């Protein structure tokens, strides 16, 4: 049985919504309707994954699925009136705010009247029959490949749509902020569609920050990124919300000379599962994958990444690092495929872990599959503890153990954080981490 039992109840409940909520799901659009139908069938077949599911074997998903999850299919009037200043990386930069998965115009700052640059609600784009949105949605992802992907495809009700036409360069980072507010447990499913046409450039900073309410929140997000020829895209996905269980499926396709960088930063969450698939679809593409995770207490942070080298002369470079404390669990599964046509590929992958407690767990599995013969590839993983010699050196200068640990951990995380495409974000995350070290 690949499905979980608690999951079956929730599955039935969600699928019942699927049949009833036709207008919320934009099913009057025939394209969307057929895409949804296909996805709903795929989800019906797969159900929520149990530990017998090869790709979810380390997660007892039952723990995170509640049959009493409410599944909002329309925007509630936002109870949040103002964004906390601390989460803004630039108060003048564009920001796209979602509340419970629904685009919140009153909290957002969107481009208006800029030729070739659209950013805002995905549902609205679909309702307005935006051609770019309709021709791109769902084209990168196959719902049979993953149950959460299938479920989101069947049932997302809103999210974000960003479109940059040819050669449009957005200088300042665009923030995508996922806020949650609820007095009951909720299951929400935002969808993010990013279309960056040839020669365009953009930096997107996604963040799910801590909010006041203490409710179980499940966020099942799908992000699709089309990175055109010569385009440059940076995408940060940061989670820092203790009551959130998140599965985030990201699909990116990169075209000739395109350059895609992804940053997965997992600081807090009950569960954060990062499914990241990057396809280097043409030649001379680059992909950079950086990850930093820091599970403590019972947190589970899991990254399953895939870089698919399909064509020659591409480069991919992956570095995921983590610190695991308390009863925390970190999982890293990194696949790199180098297909037969992908000669002259450079592919590097590295995963490093530090365990801070006896109860902490790391499962790391790098998988390199190479079918081309003229390539340079390497991968490696390591799991260790803080270097006792370094600790002693610091302590011998009068630095107490917690401070010495913080210095070393900060240096360790720094290797990832310094790669982030925003200095303000780097500083904010560094401070959040320092709190975590001294906890």
């Amino acid at each position, binding site marked *: 049985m690949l499905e979980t039992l608690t999951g079956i109840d929730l599955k039935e409940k969600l699928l019942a919504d699927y049949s009833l909520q036709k207008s919320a799901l934009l099913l009057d659009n025939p394209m969307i309707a057929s895409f949804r139908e296909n996805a709903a069938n795929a989800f019906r077949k797969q159900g929520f994954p149990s530990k017998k599911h090869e790709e979810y074997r380390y997660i007892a998903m039952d723990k995170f699925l509640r049959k009493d999850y409410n599944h909002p299919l329309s925007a509630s009037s936002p109870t949040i009136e103002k964004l906390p200043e601390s989460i803004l990386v630039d108060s003048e930069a564009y920001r796209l705010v979602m509340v419970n998965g629904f685009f919140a115009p009153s909290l957002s700052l969107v481009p208006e009247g800029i030729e070739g640059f659209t950013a805002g609600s995905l549902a609205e784009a679909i309702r307005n029959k935006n051609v770019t949105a309709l021709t791109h949605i769902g084209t990168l992802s196959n719902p049979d490949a993953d149950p959460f992907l299938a479920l989101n495809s069947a049932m997302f009700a809103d999210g974000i749509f960003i479109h940059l036409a040819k050669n449009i360069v957005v200088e300042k980072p665009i923030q995508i902020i996922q806020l949650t507010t609820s007095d009951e447990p909720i299951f929400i499913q935002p969808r993010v569609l990013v279309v960056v046409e040839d020669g365009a450039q953009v930096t997107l900073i996604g963040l799910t920050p801590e909010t006041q309410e203490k409710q179980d929140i499940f966020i099942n997000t799908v992000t699709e990124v089309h990175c055109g020829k010569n385009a440059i895209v940076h995408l940060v996905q940061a989670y820092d919300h203790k009551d959130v269980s998140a599965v985030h499926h990201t699909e990116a396709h990169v075209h000739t000379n395109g350059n895609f960088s992804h940053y997965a930063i997992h600081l807090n969450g009950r569960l954060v599962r990062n499914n990241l698939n990057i396809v280097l679809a043409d030649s001379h593409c680059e992909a950079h994958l950086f990850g930093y995770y820091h599970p403590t207490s019972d947190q589970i942070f899991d990254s399953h990444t895939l870089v698919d080298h399909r064509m020659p002369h591409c480069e991919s470079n992956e570095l995921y690092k983590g610190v695991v404390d308390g009863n925390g669990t970190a999982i890293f599964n990194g696949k790199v495929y180098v297909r037969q046509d992908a000669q002259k590929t450079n592919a590097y992958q590295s995963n490093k872990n530090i365990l801070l407690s006896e109860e902490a767990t790391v499962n790391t599995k790098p998988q390199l599959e190479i079918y081309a013969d003229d390539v340079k590839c390497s991968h490696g993983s390591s799991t260790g503890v803080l*270097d006792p010699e370094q600790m*002693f*050196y*610091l302590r*011998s200068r009068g*630095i107490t153990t917690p*401070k*010495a640990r913080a210095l070393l951990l900060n*240096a360790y995380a*720094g290797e990832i954080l310094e790669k982030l495409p925003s200095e303000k974000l780097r500083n904010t995350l560094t401070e959040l981490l320092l709190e975590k070290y001294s906890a």
Partner: protein
Amino acid sequence: MLSIKNLHARVAEKEILKGFNLDVKPGEVHAIMGPNGSGKSTLASVLAGREDYEVTSGEIIFEGKNLLELAPEDRAREGIFLAFQYPVEIPGVSITNFLKTAMNEQREYRGLSPIEPKEFLQMMKEKKALVEIDTNLTNRSVNEGFSGGEKKRNEIFQMAMLDPKLAILDETDSGLDIDALRIVATGVTQLKRPDNACIVITHYQRLLDFIVPDFVHVLFEGKIVKSGTKELALELEEKGYDWIRKEVASL
């Protein structure tokens, strides 16, 4: 200031120090010499509080306190400083951040407020000049990619910044060319005051031409077998450690 009595210590089940005694008073410089493996670094490690070294008997009193009961960081905050024989590299931690943290942790212990950034920078500048260390080096991560000599100089620089009561220099002279040796020694000499003291561990007498010791002790197989004044160092240089070996054997 420091009184070590009948110290026995072991590491990895092996007894290294076997009844070590030493008294150090304020203002004094003690040199400890001895062949490789005689236990010099073990002594330094025990004084600094390295955890894999187990003291099986004896006592160490520093400024009236039982040193053996203190954690390494508290020993440092009480005024002990060890210049390591093999300083460790700490990538990603800048010397400036490291020293500021160390200094403020020590100040906190003494009930002082954190140092003013301006005062800290001024102090960095002064002490850098003292050990002739350049800014390029202090902007880097602690010891990362430093040459052997740069590491040793960085130890003395930290000592100058932290201003300890008792400094223990473990073979700070090894691996230094004559210029570096002179710089290190000048640094140490300039930091000497009537109220602080220094234990200079060395293999050769070379360093003692620059840092003139009040006492010279010979450590052999875990205890001091001979003590004297600076002339003893010269004698050792001339006759080698075999001389000591024979003398000990004849006892």
